[in-house]
């Protein structure tokens, strides 16, 4: 059996992927709201999101909302496929 995707198979990134997958494709969430959902520190979440972004699983978009900068995070089609494959493998292991 193939090894579980190491990019996803770490608690913080797994929870981030699960949250973004629940949000759905073509949807994105503000960084503070995602941080609140996951109960992580900003630094910790940023580190893990960078790793997921490098793998092409998520997109991080910086934009201006009103007059303030805002960061929105969303899952990509590659990310959805990787997460589905991960869940399938995980269920096969149990």
């Amino acid at each position: 059996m193939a090894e579980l995707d190491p990019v996803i198979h770490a608690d913080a990134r797994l929870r981030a992927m699960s949250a973004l997958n629940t949000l759905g494709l073509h949807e994105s969430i503000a960084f503070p709201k995602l941080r609140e959902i996951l109960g992580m520190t900003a630094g910790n979440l940023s580190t893990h999101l960078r790793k997921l972004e490098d793998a092409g699983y998520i997109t991080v978009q910086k934009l201006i909302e009103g007059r303030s900068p805002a960061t929105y995070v969303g899952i990509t089609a590659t990310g959805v496929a990787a997460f589905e494959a991960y869940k399938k493998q995980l269920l096969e292991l149990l």
Partner: protein
Amino acid sequence: MFADASRFVTRHTATIHRRTAARNTNQSPTEEPALDPRAALASLNQAAATTRASIEPNTAVIYFVWAAAYLLGYGLLHGAAFGWLPLAYGTALVIGAVILLAAITYTAVAGIRSSSQIRGDSTFAGMAYGMSWMGGFLIVALFSIVISRLLADEHLLVTGWLINSVAILVVGIMYMAGAAIFGDRSMFLLGVCFTVLNAAGLIAGASAFISIFAIGGPILFVAAGITMLVLRRRESSGTVK
């Protein structure tokens, strides 16, 4: 003995410092300990449930609010129409409208609050759905005025019966449309039930429709609320979608 105690304290403090430092730096996510598959699945489900609770309004509470609104609104109308409440029918209508507005406001605020800080297709879908409700009820309000003028000589119950059937027509269709937009089967069932209830109210006639809605409406909403609670609990405790 004091030296032993001192060594213990020093060693213990050092351990705490190491643990705290490890927790605070969070520099290398790749160095996290490997997850047990069962723990990974639990973590995944928990994150999905927390996310859902954060980005979706609490539908169960909304349905319970509407159950109370229907019970109070139609209950007041029934009491005024059949004389078991010392209230004029017109006053009951006004109070019913205030209750309706309060329930609409609660629903709108819950929807807006849950969709804040979210961008994407769902934002437009939610906004369009909310506007459709408003458009539908604007027509119901205009229809109410027109039909009240047209049937000025009729008993208030007859006018109310007709206005109610148009209002519930909108409710049934909007729930079914919402089910199609959001892929919510229980919402579709609720729409179907309200359409059936509407048919029953129309067939039953002007003197019986209030009783049907005062009883049937709250029952449907409470059933829908309980269904949502059960579904949410099932999702958070377990099955991967």
